[in-house]
């Protein structure tokens, strides 16, 4: 099973979009646009650091450390709604815990690639947001959530975020 999750398959993991656009919208609504931009910047720098540590731990075959770093990555990604990165990190944690280092290496490569993609998407988001004349949603955001639900709908009523292969790197 783990082998089918590795590599550069564009459907990996199947059905999971890059971002949970609804969550980002909620954060912006509940706090502020400026805050969301700060939060995104923090996420990117924090995860970049964690990725380095995680890569080292996987390379050194340190099961406990690698699993803990992969687990922590999921928490950060979940908070911001970075869904696919979270899913890949979860898969990596499972592979590490099973001492399946072949799958771990492949999934780590996928994680690095996914993070690069997330960075691009979120960078575009930040740049557009910083522009005073920019529309409320960046192009990348619209790509992540092709059909935004009505503001009045409860989270359970909202459509699940769709994968947007067009935005894949």
């Amino acid at each position, binding site marked *: 099973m783990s082998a089918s999750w590795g590599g550069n398959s564009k459907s990996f993991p199947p059905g999971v979009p890059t971002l949970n656009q609804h969550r980002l919208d909620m954060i*912006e609504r509940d706090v*502020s646009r400026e805050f969301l931009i700060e*939060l995104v910047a*923090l996420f990117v720098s924090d995860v970049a650091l964690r990725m380095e540590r995680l890569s080292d731990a996987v390379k050194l075959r340190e099961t406990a450390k690698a699993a803990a770093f992969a687990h*922590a990555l999921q928490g950060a990604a979940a908070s911001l709604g970075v869904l696919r990165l979270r899913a890949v990190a979860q898969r990596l944690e499972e592979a590490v815990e099973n001492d399946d280092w072949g799958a771990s290496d492949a999934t780590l490569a996928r994680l690095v690639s996914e993070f690069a993609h997330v960075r691009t998407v979120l960078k575009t988001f930040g740049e557009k947001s910083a522009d005073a004349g920019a529309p409320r949603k960046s192009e990348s955001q619209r790509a992540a959530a092709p059909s935004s639900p009505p503001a009045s709908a409860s989270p359970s009523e909202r459509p699940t975020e769709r994968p947007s292969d067009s935005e894949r790197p």
Partner: protein
Amino acid sequence: MTHHPTTPDAADPAFEILPTTDVVALVEDDATTRMLTRAWLESAGYTVVEYDSERAVREGNGPAPIVACVDLGLGEHSGFDVISYLRERDSELPIIVVTAEREVDTAVAAMRAGAYDYLTKPVDRDRLLLSVRRACERRRLVDRVKNLQSELATGPLAGTVVGAGPAMRELSRQVERVVESDVAVCLLGESGTGKELVARAIHRGGPRRSGQFVAINCAAIPASLQESELFGHERGAFTGAIQTRLGCFERARGGTLLLDEVGEMSPATQAVLLRTLQEHTVRRVGGSQEIPVDVRIVCATHRDLRGEVDAGRFREDLYFRLVVYPIQLPSLRNRVEDIPALVTHFLDKLRVRTAHGVRGLSAEALDALARHAWPGNVRELENVIHRSVLACRGQEIGLADLPSDLRSASSPGAGERQVGDDLLGDEDEVVTLRELEQRAIRKALKLTRGSVGRAAKLLGIGRATLYRRLAELDVSQETVGRIVA
């Protein structure tokens, strides 16, 4: 940096209360989650003290929190260590644990270890704020009860009754007025409200404390034996009277006599009692000698004694002798704020007898107790706690451990029935429709502890309608606060 909500949503349940300055400790090692959680809490008016590790918690010297949110997956250190440490510092601190979806078993273990609530990641803002708000309310209630208990610790009811809410403080004040004198006190209250306990407190607190306290339940003694029990009998006074026996009056000489359920006394005994109270002497059944007695009389009844007089079942002259200073004991449903303290008291009492390991009640179980009508009052509560302890398999009594009638009482339908209770006042009282509406709203707010959303639901109207009616009826935020208090 403090971030305020761009558009506070009035319909949002998390914004039902005004912003507070309550301090929330946030223990989270992930920077993104910490920043987001902090912003949500601050946007709701909380002051946040954040820690990124167990060590930071131990070394921290920030303001004392009234609620803590603890991530159970704190790097290499277990969140359980943080929970233990926080609990050592403040045994009443409500702790909300945050855990990954896959670690629900861990969350259950944390709940068993005394956590107040648990949230799964990614944390939902509304769920977080609701949980924190409830935890704050619970903490404030516990603190208030403790403060008031310390106030009561020096009053005449100290060590006698449990509870420190407004009703019990008023009772304490009333008792304080009568302990030193011999004034005839009549304790009025439903069955199970603690009338005998208060009578004993009056005896112990007054100058007759060195004398005997004797209690007689008039309802438990057949009419034919009431005279003999109260006034004694001489040997041979009737068949079976093989020796002279002292009655309650003589046994209580120099002390206090409690005439419990005095409304059940037979007319013949009422006549003899009246003469005894007038003359301060008793004559044993079958005797001819008048024996002086110096007794303080305290009577108690669950009946409307004035109504019994009007109905011709109780002598009016005796009524005026006995009811010089009536004291109304509050029913349990009118002092639900004392339920947590009573539960703790009964659990401690049972622990001595049964060595059970139950530490407390879950929030849901406590809510169910607060909603119950308690026709049997404190006695019924003690019975319920005893049964629940026997049913409980863990350290905390949950909703499922409560008797079925209490579980069903926790449904919204039961709340609707309670809103209708005693709204119409006395039988011969006619209230205006405006007053009736005001009473219904006040009652619903009291039952829901000020939650406008839930009160509106109980009343069968929308939240906006209730806000409008509150404004039209001039019910301010302060008034709502007083109603809840």
